[in-house]
């Protein structure tokens, strides 16, 4: 065994010990340290494999004996998991201090980490499915341990119901793949014909897509992510939905490869719907964590756009651009993991000191909480896809891939690429809109409530974790190109690009990100110096001569009003204005507006009604009497015997 094997095995042992830590009497700090050390070693091992070390452990096989191994793709996801998990665990040290039932939460977050790492390293169908289910259950348990009200129970029910219904697709695709021996020998599926491949691809898109939160299968996500404890939310939004994409990537790019052209178009369409739909609904949310959850749907959509483009390129025989598009998708996986974890962690810190994450009741936190607030600002700019941060780098690469789909492909595919590129540009603009709103309402301006005015900076560990992630945003934005060759090499016949900090891709004007960062910093600093700081006496902001008090402050709904009006036919907002008059005088006026979630009202509600109706009909034969059930059994047996007799079955 090589040193790398030992490293990884030590990591697994430490992580497992950390998971059972609270049960064997370790205190919180030690438990977290063990978990962090374990996941750190696993991530390190994964990164080494990604950058060229020999794969560790077994390869994929089709029988049911458990096996584990790490190849480049698993390594990438392990490293991503570690980059998010380390700050999240550090954060949890202060976040959970003094919390209700902290030991249970500690054990559950360890189990969650273990299941995430388990799924990306499992090498046979039985362990893959076992970890998959555990990965769903661990956060559900964490939600229930933290809050036990009926709302939380309902959320968990919806989460489990939707992910399990969708998860059936995962079972179907994995078991079918194992049945045809495609896990160990990806080529063997081709012999089974297009219909089998289509079944597997569709089942995988539904199954993994549900867990990844692709629209219209996302319904659980905006419910479950906001109610989990913040460090678990960070892992759910940052990593868990990406691990679902890992499954999809394995199916589409390895086991069922080469994926057919139509599957590329399907993934592209789902990605576009998720990107635009996710950010549109994020924009109209009033709760920070719910907004962040919707924005996760958007980012999964962007990743799916990259994956879809890669399939389209591959089926048209352009292996270089197929590899670039694939790398763009993976780069966005990593980038989104970093900034979404940051935003969720800081949201937890805000919630703890302000008590509410309703956007209209925060305000002015940048002055009160400079460290966490500053990190939140950096994370918001990164998720809005602004240069020179990391979100821009991966969105730029994805956009370039889509533009080249339009340029290089056959007419139908080309139009799809152009539409997707325009959609992604609109998504980026909406993300700027959305996160400028968040930054403005949460960090800037005057505090909107007394709780916000008295907010205090978070404890050291909760401060350091987001700042570390913000530094990652800057570093990944400055040198995304160093990762590119390794990521491109993950799909079999990839193109060759030399490793350099910027993104120098043929057919583009290149994105020299380090120079962009340096240029922006240097020029801003120069202009800052030139401008000087000679200011007049402090004055209030202009509000037509009256003092700018809280009644004049802009709300979340007000800021997005023009867009809501422009998109009225798409979003169908509901408004209600009640005016109370007495003797011809207006006594009071009340305004209420809401944006119904159209997927819930138009898609899920009829299904739910149908299911309940079916259940009511089925209840009629459920008398509860043992004799009735015995009669049913007898009748069934008689029918079966009769069928056998007549030769219809058997």
């Amino acid at each position, binding site marked *: 065994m090589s040193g790398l094997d030992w490293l990884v095995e030590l990591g697994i042992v430490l992580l497992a010990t950390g998971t059972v830590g609270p049960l064997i009497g370790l205190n919180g700090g030690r438990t977290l340290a063990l978990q962090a050390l374990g996941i750190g070693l696993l991530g390190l091992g994964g990164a080494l494999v990604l950058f060229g070390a020999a794969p560790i452990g077994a390869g994929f096989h089709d029988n049911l004996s458990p096996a584990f191994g790490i190849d480049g793709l698993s390594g990438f996801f392990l490293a991503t998991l570690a980059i998010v998990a380390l700050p999240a665990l550090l954060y949890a040290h202060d976040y959970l201090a003094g919390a209700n039932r902290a030991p249970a939460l500690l054990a559950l977050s360890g189990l969650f980490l273990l299941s995430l790492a388990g799924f990306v390293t499992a090498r046979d169908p039985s362990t893959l499915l076992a970890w998959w289910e555990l990965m769903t259950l661990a956060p559900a348990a964490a939600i229930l341990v933290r809050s036990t009200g009926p709302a939380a129970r309902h959320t968990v029910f919806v989460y489990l119901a939707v992910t399990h219904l969708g998860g059936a697709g995962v079972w179907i695709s994995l078991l079918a793949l194992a049945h045809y021996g495609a896990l160990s020998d990806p080529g063997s599926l081709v012999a089974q014909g297009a219909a089998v491949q289509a079944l597997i691809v569709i089942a995988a898109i539904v199954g993994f897509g549900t867990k990844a939160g692709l629209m219209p299968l996302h319904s659980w996500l905006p419910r479950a992510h906001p109610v989990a404890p913040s460090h678990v939310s960070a892992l759910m939004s940052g990593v868990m939905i990406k691990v679902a994409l890992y499954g999809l990537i394995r199916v589409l790019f390895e086991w069922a490869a080469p994926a057919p052209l139509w599957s590329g178009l399907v993934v592209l369409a789902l990605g576009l719907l998720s990107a635009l739909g996710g950010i549109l609904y994020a924009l109209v949310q009033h709760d920070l964590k719910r907004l962040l959850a919707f924005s996760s749907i958007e980012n999964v959509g962007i990743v799916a756009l990259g994956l879809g483009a890669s399939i389209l390129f591959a089926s048209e025989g352009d292996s270089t651009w197929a590899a670039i598009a694939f790398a763009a998708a993976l780069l966005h996986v990593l980038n989104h993991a970093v900034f979404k974890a940051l935003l969720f962690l800081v949201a937890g810190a805000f919630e703890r000191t302000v008590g509410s994450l309703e956007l209209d009741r925060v305000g002015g936190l940048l002055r009160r909480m400079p460290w966490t607030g500053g990190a939140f600002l950096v994370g918001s700019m990164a998720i809005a896809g602004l*240069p020179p941060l990391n979100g821009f780098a991966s969105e730029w690469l994805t956009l370039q891939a889509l533009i080249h789909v339009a340029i290089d492909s*056959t007419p139908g595919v080309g139009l799809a690429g152009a539409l997707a590129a325009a959609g992604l540009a*609109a998504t980026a*603009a909406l993300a700027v809109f959305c996160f400028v709103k968040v*930054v403005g309402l949460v960090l800037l301006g005057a505090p909107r409530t007394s709780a916000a005015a008295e907010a205090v900076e978070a404890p050291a560990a909760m401060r350091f974790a987001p700042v570390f992630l913000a530094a990652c945003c800057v570093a990944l934005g400055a040198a995304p190109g160093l990762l590119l060759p390794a990521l491109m090499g993950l799909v079999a016949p990839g193109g060759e690009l030399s490793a350099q900090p*910027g993104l120098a891709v043929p057919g*583009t*004007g290149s*994105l020299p990100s380090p120079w962009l960062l340096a240029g922006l910093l240097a020029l801003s600093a120069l202009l800052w110096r030139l401008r000087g700081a000679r200011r007049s006496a402090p004055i209030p902001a*202009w509000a037509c001569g009256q003092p700018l008090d809280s009644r004049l402050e802009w709300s979340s709904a007000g800021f997005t009003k023009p867009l809501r009006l422009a998109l009225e036919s798409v979003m169908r907002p509901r408004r209600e204005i009640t005016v109370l008059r007495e003797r011809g005088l207006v006594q009071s006026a009340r305004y209420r507006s809401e944006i119904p979630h159209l997927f819930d009202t138009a898609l899920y509600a009829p299904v739910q009604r149908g299911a309940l109706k079916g259940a009511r009909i089925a209840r009629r034969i459920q008398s509860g009497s043992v004799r009735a059930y015995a009669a049913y059994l007898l009748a069934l047996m008689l029918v079966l015997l009769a069928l056998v007799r007549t030769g219809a079955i058997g």
Partner: protein
Amino acid sequence: MTALAGAIQIAGGLALAPLLPGTVQAIKARLQGRRGPSPLQPYRELRRLWGKTLADPQPTTIVYRLAPCVVAAAMALALFLVPIAGLSPAWPLGNDVVVLVGLLALARFALAAASWDTGSGFALMGSSRDLTLSVFAEALLLLAIVLVALPAGSTDLVAIEAAAGGSSVWSEPVHWCAAAAFALVVLFETGRQPIDNPDTHLELTMIHEGPLLEYAGRDLALLEWSAAARHWIVLVLAAELFLPHWGGFGAQLGCLAVALVLLCAALALSETAQAKMRILRAPALFAGGCLLALVGLASWLVGGAT
């Protein structure tokens, strides 16, 4: 030659940019039968503003103070990306048009964040409208980029300009569609009628002027220059991508100068001839542009010009 192009890129962009809005205003005044200010008026404004103290509205944070510097820095960097007369020295920043879109978005973000920081209703009104329209304008801009990138097979502006030269592009419908789409983007980015009205601070109509209201002195000077630089960037791009130009560097430079004056005149004409449209009608206008661009794309793809 390349060095000269580089010098014009930077020095021209820095120094000549304010001339463009000045020229538009001067021509507009003539068209309306007024004497109007000289085209040099923006320079006088900048000099006047540079000598004044900064405003200090309360309560604001560093975001408000940093915003003008970031906006101007993003615009100054964008100048490096736009080649002049088809040439650009090998700046380490590349010439990618999508990076340019990113820098414009950065400027928009910085200004909108500053509006939130002051909490001023007028500033927020302006930036919420700006951001709303930017959603549609950015989609349209990207489609226009796809269209102009088709003949070149690249999003490198130097390659695109090389492919857009000569006379053969004029027989391609895709070129006309791209030009129409980009014209709408120019109207939006320069803040001109019928989408925005640069001459008013009336809250009912303003978009781009709104977020500037709380700034004074050198901050305002930086922001005014940035607005002028945005004119420079989109008008130079429009001239070099969509207007005829041919010959060597000198001839192309001449073409560019003439084209810029013509484009300023066209903006002035559009400002004089049209009233500002209702803000909620603008998305429909952009959607029409998108459709046109898609038709152009389809014509190229079906025509099989590759």
